[in-house]
């Protein structure tokens, strides 16, 4: 009989920044979109953890999210996030009350099915799903959403092109979510899944720092509130192995009937 060896877990081992940051919905990646990377600092010989807090200050709204993720053997990522979108003065104008906040919980799972961000010739390729539950069901239904929860499905491919110091990542997403789910799922215009494209392009300035831009296309399912594609430009800095800071300038377009929602994003991620 062959003896079975319990392989001991390693502690630490990913290269700086190669776990990405935490995207708005809790999956590790860029700021606006997931990448095909797994949360935490561990390689295939360990179990990693990460936690994040993100703040976006827009012209008329503010957004916060907190969350945590576990990365199993650089293969499987499980994440959880709570988002809070505060309507500030606009809440009163919309008849919801000043500082009315939409809240959403997201549970995500992602599996890296092939490739590697840094080493192999094949890009890292991952598939994932995000179950989202909006905590303001009656309100999102009143504005035309069909559901207060939904599931997004996505596939991502990501590669660090070392020779050029460039990171490129693309994601295809199937979603019914209005504004990521903040305004519910499905709408009076359509209750079908739509295909969206998301991407990040980053330039690694140094071992600790990268700058870049992101794009995320969005569905448009509610007739009373037009939805626009999202953009950002970002700078990310690894303060140390366990702490990564991100600052970005974002253009989220029209949200809940109010256009030109531009502003700044700050995010801190800790990872082990």
């Amino acid at each position, binding site marked *: 009989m062959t003896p079975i060896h319990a392989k001991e877990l390693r502690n630490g*081992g990913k290269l700086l920044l190669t776990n990405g940051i935490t995207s708005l919905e809790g999956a590790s990646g860029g700021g606006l979109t997931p990448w095909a990377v797994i949360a935490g600092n561990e390689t295939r010989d360990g179990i990693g953890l990460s936690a994040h807090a993100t703040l976006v200050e827009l012209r008329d709204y503010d957004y916060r999210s907190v969350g945590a993720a576990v990365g199993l053997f650089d293969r499987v990522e499980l994440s959880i996030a709570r988002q809070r979108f505060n309507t500030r003065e606009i809440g009163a104008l919309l008849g919801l009350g000043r500082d009315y906040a939409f809240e959403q919980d997201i549970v995500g799972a992602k599996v890296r099915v092939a490739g590697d961000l840094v*080493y192999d010739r094949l890009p890292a390729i991952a598939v994932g799903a995000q179950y989202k539950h909006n905590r303001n069901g009656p309100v999102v239904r009143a504005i035309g959403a069909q559901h207060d929860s939904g599931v997004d499905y996505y596939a991502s491919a990501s590669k660090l092109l070392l020779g050029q110091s460039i990171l490129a990542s693309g994601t295809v997403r199937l979603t019914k979510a209005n504004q990521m789910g903040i305004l519910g799922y499905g709408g009076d215009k359509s209750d079908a899944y739509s295909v969206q494209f998301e991407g990040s392009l980053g330039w690694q300035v140094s071992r600790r720092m990268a700058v870049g831009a992101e794009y995320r296309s969005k569905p448009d399912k509610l007739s009373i509130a037009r939805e626009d594609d999202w953009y950002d430009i970002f700078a990310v800095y690894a303060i140390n192995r366990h702490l990564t800071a991100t600052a970005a300038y974002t253009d989220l377009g029209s949200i809940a009937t109010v256009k030109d929602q531009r502003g700044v994003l700050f995010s801190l991620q800790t990872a082990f």
Partner: protein
Amino acid sequence: MTVSLFPLLLLAQATPYAVPGETAVTPYVVDDANAAARPFVGDDIARAFGGQDGIRRIVDRLIDKSHNDPVIGEIFVSHDMVRLKRTLFEQFCYILNAGCSYSGRDMKASHKDLGIQHADMNRMVEILQAVMREQGISFPAQNRLLSRLAPMRHDVVER
């Protein structure tokens, strides 16, 4: 015909598997292809690394620091450090097109039974980055070298 073949045979015989000061290794076929990466074209990357002298400093520092490293130092214990410094220098010098041939073994043979894990390779990359930074190599040039080494992980990591 016999006369003209003789020096060639002698040369083939004389190709060192190991040079004096190094532990003998099982014979193998010497080939630049064992370096497992195609060399850069042109001499700008060799100059960015300070030519053969600069590359030798980087390799010597890399091996010394790796040997003393708390995470991966154990891998180098009872390893022939003289040979490792020579062959790694040749490999970097060949890849950086700084005027060397590579006489070492291929990546699978040279890393066999070392029990290297992903985290070990990443650790060595970090030490290499630190040494290159210390030697004043620009970050883009550092990454260009790493881009040629990265695909070797497949043969280096075995568990």
